[in-house]
C-alpha cells in the first residue's frame, strides 16, 4: 500500500514538473508584456529596461531555472501588474473558488447520486424519466445560459437571492445551482449505469438469496461497488470546475480562479499565470491522491493486491 502511494506521488511530481515547463513556455509565446504594460510612446530602451527589471531579458533556460528554484521555495515572483507576490493574488482567489467548487461538487453529489440510484432501482418508472430530463437539460446548454435565466428569475423578478457578488450562502446558491447542475447531470447518468451493472452481478443475487432486505442490498452491497467509478468522475469534474467555471464566475462576479487566470493571461502577467497553473495542478494532484486513497480504502483488492 505504501509502495503504491509512493509511486503515485512520484508520478504526480513528474506531472507537476512537466506542467511547469509547458505553461512556462506557452505563456511566453502569447506575447511580450513590455508592449502591453508600457505605453506606446516608450522607446525600445524603456522596454528593454522593463524586460530586464522583470527578468524577461535572460535566455529562457536561465529564466526557467530561476523559476524552478523559486517554485521549490514557494516564491513565484512578483506580479508584473500588481507588484505583489504572484502567489498572494492566487491565494486571494483560491478561497472563493474552493468554496464554489466544493459546494457545487457537494450539490452535484447530493442530487446526482441519489437520482442515479433511484433511476437504477426504479428503472422505467417516473423517477428515471425525471433523471433523463434533468441530465439532458443539464448538459444541453452552457452553464452561463442557465445562470442568466436563473438570475433573471430568482433575483431580478422574485428578488429572493442576490444577483451577484461573493458572500454568504445566499450568494452561493445560484452559482452552485448553475455549476452543480452540469456535473449532477453527468453523475446521475453514470451512477445509474454503474449501479445497474453492479445489481446484475452474482454477489447481489447471493445477497438476496441470503434474505438481505432489498434496501440493504442496494445501499449496502451494490452502492459501495458502484461508487468506485463515480469517485473518479467526481475528481475529474473537480479539476474542471476549479478553473473552468470562468463564465459562471464572470456572470456572478465571483472572484474565482478561472476569471483570474483569464485576466492574467490577457494582461500577460506571466508570474500570476504560472502560479495559478501550478497551484491548480497541485490541487488536481492532491484530489487524485485523495481519490487513490479513497479507492484503496474502498477496494481491498488494491489495498492487499492480488
Amino acid at each position: 500500500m505504501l509502495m503504491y502511494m509512493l509511486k503515485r506521488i512520484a508520478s504526480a511530481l513528474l506531472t507537476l514538473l512537466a506542467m511547469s515547463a509547458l505553461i512556462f513556455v506557452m505563456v511566453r509565446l502569447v506575447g511580450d508584456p513590455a508592449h502591453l504594460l508600457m505605453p506606446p510612446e516608450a522607446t525600445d530602451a524603456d522596454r528593454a529596461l522593463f524586460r530586464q527589471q522583470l527578468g524577461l531579458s535572460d535566455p529562457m533556460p536561465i529564466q526557467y531555472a530561476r523559476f524552478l528554484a523559486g517554485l521549490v521555495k514557494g516564491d513565484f515572483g512578483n506580479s508584473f501588474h500588481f507588484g505583489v507576490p504572484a502567489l498572494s493574488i492566487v491565494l486571494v482567489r483560491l478561497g472563493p473558488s474552493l468554496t464554489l467548487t466544493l459546494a457545487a461538487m457537494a450539490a452535484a453529489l447530493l442530487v446526482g447520486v441519489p437520482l442515479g440510484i433511484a433511476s437504477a432501482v426504479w428503472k422505467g418508472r417516473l423517477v428515471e424519466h425525471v433523471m433523463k430530463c434533468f441530465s439532458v437539460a443539464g448538459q444541453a446548454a452552457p452553464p452561463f445560459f442557465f445562470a442568466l435565466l436563473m438570475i433573471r428569475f430568482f433575483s431580478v423578478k422574485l428578488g429572493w437571492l442576490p444577483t451577484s457578488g461573493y458572500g454568504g450562502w445566499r450568494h452561493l446558491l445560484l452559482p452552485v445551482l448553475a455549476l452543480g447542475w452540469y456535473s449532477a447531470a453527468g453523475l446521475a447518468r453514470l451512477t445509474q449505469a454503474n449501479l445497474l451493472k453492479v445489481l446484475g452481478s452474482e454477489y447481489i443475487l447471493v445477497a438476496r438469496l441470503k434474505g438481505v432486505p432489498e434496501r440493504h442490498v442496494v445501499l449496502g452491497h451494490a452502492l459501495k461497488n458502484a461508487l468506485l467509478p463515480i469517485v473518479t468522475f467526481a475528481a475529474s469534474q473537480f479539476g474542471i470546475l476549479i478553473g473552468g467555471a470562468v463564465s459562471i464566475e464572470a456572470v456572478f462576479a465571483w472572484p474565482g480562479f478561472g476569471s483570474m487566470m483569464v485576466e492574467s493571461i490577457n494582461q500577460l502577467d506571466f508570474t500570476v499565470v504560472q502560479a495559478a497553473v501550478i497551484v491548480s495542478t497541485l490541487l488536481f494532484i492532491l484530489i487524485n491522491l485523495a481519490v487513490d486513497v479513497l479507492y484503496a480504502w474502498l477496494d481491498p483488492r488494491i489495498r492487499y493486491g492480488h
Partner: protein
Amino acid sequence: MRNLASFRFATLALTSALLLATGLARATPQTPAVDRDTLVVGVEKEFQNLDGLVTISGDSLRYGWQIYDTLYGFDLNGNLVPRLATQVKISSDAKTYTYTLRQGVKFQNGAAFTSKDVKASLDHILDPTAKSTRRPFFAPIVDTVETPDPYTVIFKLKSPDGAFPNKIAGYLYIIPADYLASLPNADAFAQAPISLGPYRVKKYTPGGNELVLERFDGFWGPKPKIKTLIFKAITEPSSRVNAILRGEVDVSAVLPSSAYEQLKKEPGLDVIAVPVAAPLYIRIYTNDPASPLSKREVRQALSYALDTQAIIKGVLHGVGEPLGTFISKYYPYGGDPALRPYPYDPKKARQLLASAGYPNGFETTLNVQGDLPKELSEAVVAYWAQVGVKVKLNLLSYSAFQRLNNTHASGPLALSQFTNALYDPIHPVGGAFAKGGSWSDYENPEVEALLTQLSSATGAHARGPLFQKIGQILHDDAAGIFLSENFYIYAKKKDVLWDAQKGSGFFNFRTVSWR
C-alpha cells in the same frame, strides 16, 4: 413513447420558466445598498495597480480622482481649475511654468504638503524602476524641476509644450516624498497608496474584486458627504444591469446600450448617458502606398458607404451622436459641432471606388477592440459588403488589441475608441494622426504644420481654432472612419445626487450624496 415524453417535459419546463420570468416585474429597491453613509458602485473592469502614476490610464485613473490630487484639476466640464496650486505663471516661450502651492494642506498620512513632494512625484514617474506609464509624457520634455521655497515649484522644459498644464493636471498625481523614500521598492507604494485626495484606501487586496475607500477628514477641499465608497468589479454586462435592478449597487457604470431602453423604464432609476469625448472610430493605415486605403477616394467611399445614423439608432440604441471628425465636440476646446459626418450615399461610394480603380471592391481586415459592442463591427462589415468591400473581422480581447495597436500591427483597419485623459485634443490627435504618433500610421504635412504651431500655443483661445482646422483636414481627407461620439451609460438610484464628469471616463464621486 417514453423518450418523446422526456423531451416534452424538458421543453415545457424551460419555456414556462421563461414566460414566468418575463411576466413578473418588481420595482428596484430605493434604499441604499449598505447605508446612507456608503455608496456602492458597480464597475466593468477588474482593479489593477493602484499606483496612479504607474498603471495605464484606462484603469487606475478612474479611481484615482478620489484618492489622488493634482496641482491643477478639471471641473465637471473639463476646464482647468486650481487645486493644490493656487495659480500658475507661464513664460512667454511656454517653456517655464511656475506654480504657487496652497498652504496648510495635509497628506492622508498627516505629512505636510510642500514643493519637495511635487518634485518627488515627478521623480517617481521618471524613475525607471517604477515602470511608470507616464514617463514618456514627461521624460522627453522636462528639463529641470526647481523648488526655490516650500510653496513654489518651477518646471523648465527643453522645448515649448502648450499642453503641459493639462499634463500636469491629468497625469502628475502628488505623492508624499518622505513616505515614498521609506518604502523598500517602487512597487510597494501600490499596496498602500497615500496622496491628498478626499478618500483614502481602506481595504483592497490585489487580485480581489472589491475596492473600499473611506473619507479622509483632513482633506484640504470641500468635505465629501459620503463616508465610504465601495467599488465592486462586475465584468459581465448583464450582471451589472441586474445588480442595479436589484439595488445591490447604488450606481452601475458602463452599462451595455442593449439595456438602455429597459433601464429607462425602471421607475426607481435615473439613467445617464455621459459623453466621454473618446470617439468611436476606425483607424486607417494609410502609409502603405500599395493598399487601396492610401487613396483618399477609397477612404471617402468607405465613409459614404456607412449609414452612421442608422448604426447609432439601431446598434447603439440611440446612445451616440454623429461624429464629424476625430476631435470630439465634448472637449472644452478644439471640437467643431458644425462639422457634419459624411452622408450615407452607397451609390457615390461605388462611384468613388470605381474611379479609384476598384470597381468591384477589394478585400481587407478589420481588427476590433474586444470590449466594444460586437454588433458595431458586424454592422460596419455588412454595410461595406453592400459596396463590394469584403472585410475579415478579428474580434480581439482588450489587451490583445492593445498589444497589436501599440506596435503598429493592428492594420489595415482598427476599430477602437481613444480615451481622453488631458482634456486637450493634443493627446488623441498627436497620438493617432501625427507623424510618428504612437498609434498613428497617417502623415499629413498640413496637420504637422498646425501641430508645430500648437506646441507653443497655450490656453483655450489659442489652441481651439488650430485644433478645429486639424479637425476639418482630417474630415476632408477621411483620415479615419468616424462612427459616433462615445457615451458611457450609468444607472443610479433616484436618491443618489450625483452628476458625472463630462467628457471623460473617470469617476468623480467628490460631490456625491444621498438625498
